[in-house]
């Protein structure tokens, strides 16, 4: 089993900072290189590492700062072109590249041209993740970070994405979130995950941390830089998508789709169909285990049970539809040719989800209030193409996923084409919901690199290429 180098790994890679419920993500752009490097060098000392702290220490913890860079950010800081070419192609091109937008389903309202940030009009170099214990601590941290940024004079704030305080672990449509999560071998989280969800998929460290053996039994190519061949070690790729959720549109659609023949709303049918979209009841209780109703209906109890399979327990999708969000996002044993191979294969397309909701809860879920709300979707993976992008393209937005036709993920899929369906398998006969709309719009996004601490120091200490050039010239 791999020994993780906790002192070099950023804390965010191993923890979602549940004890720090307030967060803001600062998106920054570099305008002056030299001062940005100095700023980075100073900041690196404050970056929270993954070194384990005692329970008491954690309770004392007030804030946590982590930092990731885009490809343009690395280039501006002066990483040489040869080094820049050692990163994954997806990262080099960025999320907004034309054919990436196509495979990710970012079209029409979600097209990169429409984004608030992350596109050509408003590029981003740095992502500063600030987490804090409460609003005051967050405020204080942000003030200090902004002072530093202003003092550095070479950095502009593109946007401050506030994730605010998480009231609970429900996302805006009203469903418990953050249940299914893989466990990194050697991270010491196995027993916690088992206690919490009754299930754990343990994956080799290399699936989420570069420089370690992955699920293929090899250490994948890791970015390298002049003088630091293991530049990418202890790092990971961070996928960020700001996804606005159209909550009222979602619930009104469900309401319309489930009206009784006399035209009145049918609350039970509506909630049932919503659960079929997700694959879990709003409490989080999985349909595979609770097909007939939410065991916690009418209470605020949350349920994080995760010990079930699809093919084995619900092969036909009578409980959890074949096309439900959680069945697409992680088909487990369902895709054949046999359960064992399917499980093994699905495992290789896992992501660590680290997203948090933003915006206020909609007071009346059927009436839009004109403000934006959604999910700052963040996930971590060592291979963007094989993990995040495959899930998004081959599972979530695939119109022929697992034998289906003309449907994508009902919850978050691209429904720009007007004939999109959602099939709810049932015995003896399925029902089909038609004319689905896109209930989510992408508002911005980018691929970042969440460096190891040594690599951050390396970047902070880089000298101008002009300088190199001059010394070489003088040597001659």
């Amino acid at each position, binding site marked *: 089993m791999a020994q993780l180098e906790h002192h070099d790994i950023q804390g965010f890679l191993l923890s979602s900072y549940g004890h720090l419920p307030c967060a803001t993500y600062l998106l920054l752009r570099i305008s002056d290189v030299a001062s940005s490097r100095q700023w980075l060098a100073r900041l690196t000392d404050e970056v929270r590492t993954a070194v384990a702290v005692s329970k008491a220490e954690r309770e004392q913890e007030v804030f946590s700062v982590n930092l990731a860079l885009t490809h343009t950010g690395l280039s501006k800081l002066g990483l040489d072109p040869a080094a820049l070419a050692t990163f994954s192609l997806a990262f080099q091109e960025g999320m907004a590249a034309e054919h990436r937008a196509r495979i990710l389903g970012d079209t029409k309202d979600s097209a990169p041209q429409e984004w608030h940030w992350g596109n050509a009009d408003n590029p981003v170099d740095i992502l500063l993740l600030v987490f804090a214990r409460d609003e005051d601590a967050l405020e204080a941290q942000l003030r200090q970070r902004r002072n530093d940024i202003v003092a550095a004079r070479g950095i502009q704030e593109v946007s401050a994405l506030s994730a605010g305080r998480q009231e609970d672990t429900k996302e805006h449509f009203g469903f418990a979130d953050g249940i299914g999560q893989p466990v990194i071998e050697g991270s010491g989280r196995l027993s916690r995950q088992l206690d919490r969800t009754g299930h754990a998929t343990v994956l080799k460290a290399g699936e989420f941390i570069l420089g370690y053996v992955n699920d*293929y039994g090899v250490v994948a*190519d890791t970015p390298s830089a002049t003088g630091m061949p293991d530049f990418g070690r202890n790092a990971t790729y961070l996928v960020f998508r700001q996804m606005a959720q159209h909550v009222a549109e979602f619930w009104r659609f469900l309401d319309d789709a489930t009206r009784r023949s006399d035209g009145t709303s049918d609350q039970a049918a509506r909630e049932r169909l919503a659960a079929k979209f997700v694959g879990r009841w709003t409490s989080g209780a999985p349909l595979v285990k609770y097909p007939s109703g939410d065991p916690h209906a009418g209470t605020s109890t949350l349920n994080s049970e995760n010990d079930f399979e699809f093919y084995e327990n619900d092969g036909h999708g009578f409980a959890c539809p074949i096309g439900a969000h959680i069945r697409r996002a992680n088909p487990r044993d369902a895709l*054949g*040719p046999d359960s064992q*191979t399917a499980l093994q294969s699905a495992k*290789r397309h896992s992501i660590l989800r680290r997203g948090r909701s933003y915006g206020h809860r909609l007071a009346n879920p059927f009436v839009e209030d004109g403000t934006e709300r959604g999910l700052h979707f963040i996930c971590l993976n060592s291979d963007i193409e094989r993990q995040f992008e495959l899930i998004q393209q081959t599972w979530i937005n695939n119109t022929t996923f697992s034998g289906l036709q003309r449907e994508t993920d009902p919850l978050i899929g691209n429904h720009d084409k007007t004939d999109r369906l959602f099939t709810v398998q049932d015995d*003896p006969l399925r029902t*089909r919901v038609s004319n689905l709309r896109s209930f989510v719009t992408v508002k911005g996004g980018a691929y970042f690199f969440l460096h190891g601490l040594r690599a951050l120091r390396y970047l902070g200490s880089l000298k101008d290429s002009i300088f190199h050039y001059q010394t070489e010239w003088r040597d001659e």
Partner: protein
Amino acid sequence: MAQTVLTFITKIDPGKVTQLTTLLEQIESNQSSNPFVPFASLKGLHFASFVIFDDGDCGPDLVFENNFDGALDAYLEDLLRHAGHGLHGIYSCCLGYTATGSYDRQKMTAYLRAHVVWPNAYHIGNVGRGAERIHQETTLRDRIEVFLDDLVTDGKIDEPLGSLRQRIQQFVSDDPSLTWAINVRPRQTIIEQFTPWAKIALVAMCALLFLPVLIPLAIVSVIVLRRHEKLDPDQFRPVSSAHVQHLAKREDRIVQNHYAGIFRVKPGWFRRVTLRSVLWVANLIARTSTRGKLMGIPSIHFAHWSLIDEGRRLLFLSNYGGSWGNYLDDFIDKASTGLTGIWSNTTDFPPTRFLVLDGSRNGPRFKSFARDKQTATRVWYSAYPDLTVQNIDNNSAIREDLFTSLDETAVRSWLRRF
């Protein structure tokens, strides 16, 4: 109805590559109504492609891939009727095409026949289903689905299973535009089904018979193979980003994608013989695969392997459903043994042991290899751009069981197909 899988491979006049490229671009940008090769008019065509391979010393080759219903003669006739003049333009850029001046049907036929390359091994996902049948069964399914939507809305689904099914049967019989659905021809004739197994049995019998000779031969082969494997150079050159970008830009426009690649067989007769034998066995086994899967991979419509240039190069073409990444992952996760057995005989493949071990199991490296050897497809046509092999099989099964007599369990599982 049986399908035929073949390519026409011709040498391009090096001075006319640009001219040909422009012509192919015109076809690709207007597949449905270009004046050169109007694919949609070719009745029995499933998938077709044009690829230009410029492989250094081997000179530029034009590969014209065809996957169609029935035999070559009838197809050629149809092809030339619709695309004769267009092909004349294309092959005027190729060597050995002597029909200078205007198009001459006889000469074109002779030219194409002279350049047919039959694959050493091939796979067909939806065995026995002609292109027309695939279209018809898609319509049938769509129509029944809409009918079922109404049944559901009208609250008819609480009826007994038998009467649900009767309603569906009634709906189909009552519709004059669906009468073709009633009589179904089997996907394969008894002989077609039986032959591959008979061949395998025959081969097995011969093998038993010659066992005393084969065992020492096998031992020697393994020793020689291991020597080769140890001596094969292990140089890994990651694929260039520019090349991947060039390929990826063309992909993911429809439900399916295309792979075209030429691989150099490792030098020496030993590898050539090995590869030829492996493909021969693969083809024998592939003929028994009638359930849509190639070594566990469920997404391939048509794939071919052809040894060209006296076995010095291996051409691989595949028309598969889903994304490139998913396709390659399927290869790695589900079919490592088979594909390593084939590709380990070609250069730059990740190191192997005993022909089929390791190799593609090194996922990242295998993917880099596969991208590196891939060539951008210039023109690619699919007759059913939103269907997967699974979709087609399901649609066929719906129709095949529509009027047969089924017991209650079978009716239940038939209804699950919607």
